[in-house]
């Protein structure tokens, strides 16, 4: 198959000190300051968390949304290695890199939010671990996936440091890690949705459903492609590289397919459960439900035709739209559509504090910083000019 011939990845090169990295560094330092206060004085000192909203943006945005945004590696690897679409290969490494950072930071970010973080190892320890808990499955699965991703990505470092023997050995078993790297995100991205189930009727029927694992899995895959669209556009604009339209155009089509399946499951489920009426009540929940679903529908309007899929601006916007939809699906279920005590209590409110937002911004800044450093110094992005490929 000729499609396997493509440009070898090479470091982009260039200066590591530039306005973007400086801003990211400053945000990361601001985050560290907040974290010092959090660990010295407790969660209440810096967050607006309360017993009505025990999970804020550190869980919902940094971990649940952060890990969904980090599904690019999984989505593209699945396309390349499971559906044998080898010509997408140049997209694998950059997507995997973003995933690696997204997941590693989501894993670290959990620690900030844990009230009794020094006991964290209990989750992996027989005798403590509770296999009935959805959280247990998510934690074990995400930890395993972070390890698998570092293994999948390690050829990049091996190439840089000339570790040829190690590279050869790894190549022989890499297929197994690729399979594992496809299974694990399927498991925990679906389980991140299942986290809602035990909360029962506290979650609005628009988001509380037994098919929620399927909804979260399908959107995670679609978001994965959306993030790759977004990142490819940003990377080519920031590094002044040619945009890989010949890859992004068909990939956007795959994304629309996944999204179409998702919309069918989403609305089919709402109709079957008789929950769709909630979307037509004059409520905040109904309003955000429509924002969520319009964002998921927008890519059909933006990149529905082949011609429109060759337009980088439209691809970029479609990527953003799908990310916005994913953000709303998750925030709506865990925060806006969540009501402790089903509305009979005194009424709880939550809006993130500035300090919480600084930490979330700092986490995303660290991801961008890491992405820049590694793509400039390690062979991740395909060599400019296309070389042998096309």
């Amino acid at each position, binding site marked *: 198959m000729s499609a396997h011939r493509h440009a070898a990845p090479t470091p982009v090169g260039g200066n590591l000190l530039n306005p973007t990295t400086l801003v990211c560094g400053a945000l990361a330092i601001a985050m560290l300051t907040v974290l010092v206060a959090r660990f010295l004085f407790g969660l*209440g000192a810096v967050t607006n968390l309360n017993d009505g909203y025990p999970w804020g943006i550190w869980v919902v945005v940094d971990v649940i949304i952060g890990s969904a945004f980090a599904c690019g590696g999984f989505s593209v690897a699945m396309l390349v290695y499971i559906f044998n679409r080898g010509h997408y290969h140049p997209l694998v490494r950059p997507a995997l890199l973003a995933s690696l950072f997204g997941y590693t930071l989501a894993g670290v970010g959990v620690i900030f939010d844990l009230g009794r973080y020094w006991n964290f190892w*209990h989750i992996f320890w027989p005798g403590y671990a509770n296999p009935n808990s959805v959280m*247990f499955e998510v934690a074990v699965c995400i930890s395993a996936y972070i390890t698998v991703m570092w293994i999948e990505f390690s050829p990049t470092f091996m190439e840089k440091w000339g570790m040829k023997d190690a590279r050869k050995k790894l190549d022989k078993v890499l297929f197994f890690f690729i399979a594992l790297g496809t299974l694990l995100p399927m498991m925990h991205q679906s389980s991140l949705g299942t986290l809602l189930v035990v909360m029962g009727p506290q979650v609005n029927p628009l988001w509380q459903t037994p098919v929620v694992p399927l909804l979260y*899995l399908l959107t995670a895959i679609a978001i994965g492609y959306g993030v790759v669209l977004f990142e490819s556009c940003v990377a080519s604009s920031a590094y002044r590289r040619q945009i890989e339209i010949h890859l992004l155009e068909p990939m956007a089509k795959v994304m629309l397919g996944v999204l179409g399946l998702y919309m069918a499951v989403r609305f089919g489920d709402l109709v079957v459960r008789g929950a769709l009426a909630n979307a037509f009540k004059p409520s905040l929940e109904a309003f955000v439900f429509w924002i969520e679903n319009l964002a998921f529908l927008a890519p059909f309007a933006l990149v529905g035709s082949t011609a429109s899929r060759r337009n980088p601006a439209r691809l970029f916007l479609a990527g953003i739209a799908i990310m916005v939809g994913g953000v709303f699906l998750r925030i709506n279920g865990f925060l806006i559509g969540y009501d402790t005590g089903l509305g009979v209590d005194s009424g709880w409110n939550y809006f993130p504090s500035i300090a919480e937002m600084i930490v979330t911004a700092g986490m995303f800044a660290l991801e961008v910083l890491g992405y820049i450093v590694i793509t400039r110094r390690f062979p991740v992005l395909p060599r400019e000019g296309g070389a042998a490929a096309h």
Partner: protein
Amino acid sequence: MTTRRNFLRSCLAGGAAAAATVAPVAVSARETHPRPPEGLGLLYDATLCIGCQACVAACKRVNENTPEFNVMDKLWDTPLDTSGHTFNLIKMYRHGTMETKDAEENGYSFMKTSCMHCADPSCVSACPVSAMKKDPETGIVGYDADACIGCRYCVAACPFGIPKYQYDSPTGKIGKCELCRHRHQDGHYSACAEVCPTGATLFGRTEDLLAEAKRRLALKPGDWTAIPRGRLRHAQEKVLAGGEDGKGARHRHGWRDEPDQSYQAQVGHYLQHVYGETEYGGTQVLKLSAVNFQKAGMPDLPPKASAATSETIQHTLYGGLVMPIAVLGALTFVARRNVVAEEEGKEGDRS
């Protein structure tokens, strides 16, 4: 060139694998757990409650909880809700002129807020590290701070809003009622029931409490009846059966010696509903009220526990790791074929 048909075919195969990982097939549906037969609990009768908050003070004392202030002069403990430092609270329903007790119109009523000790608790199902555990015998939902990682999934999971976290501490714990299980070995039972002057909060086996609740509902409002106070004795229990019974169940029959504290009171205008009998699969704390339970602050819950739904999904997908291993096998097979094909492609590239 791979054809579109081939691509669609592999999409279908992959889609089937993905669907197999998540589709909740109800093969091993987990039923809602029933209450343990010897489970302990409380019966709270809002029509007997006078709102004196003696139970709130006693709860603070025996659980060594710090007072919370919500008024300018910090003279008394004034919690507005249960919290990481307040495990029990009497809340008030008010309407209009508040003339009549236990009336919804122009009346007022009380409601106890504390852990319901669910038959099938969401917090126990949610906890990833078994820090929340339901005692198989007493059914008490207990908390172990030494196991807890502070993720607060229990706080989010509970529909009664009961487990609460101490946000004011860098080493905060979860706080909730454990029916004073730490006092049982000394023959003491729940402090709130011990101190209640009117028997509005009564301690006992949930089965006995349920029978007592139904007895009250069957009486005619306004009639006089005997109302027990403190601990409701087991029907077969010998009076003053204190001390060891040699069967390792001292806490069951080893309650402290107490005189009969029952007194004559008038039957309230009850709603014909024992709250907690079926709510969320049943709870070990039961409640009676003359005012609508939702108005008084108790959520309207279905008879099925969400823990059962959640665990059915989890065990269907991951039971015995059968499905993940099968999917992994299929993915490994496909990935191996495709990665090898790619290696060959690379060789060709170099030549």
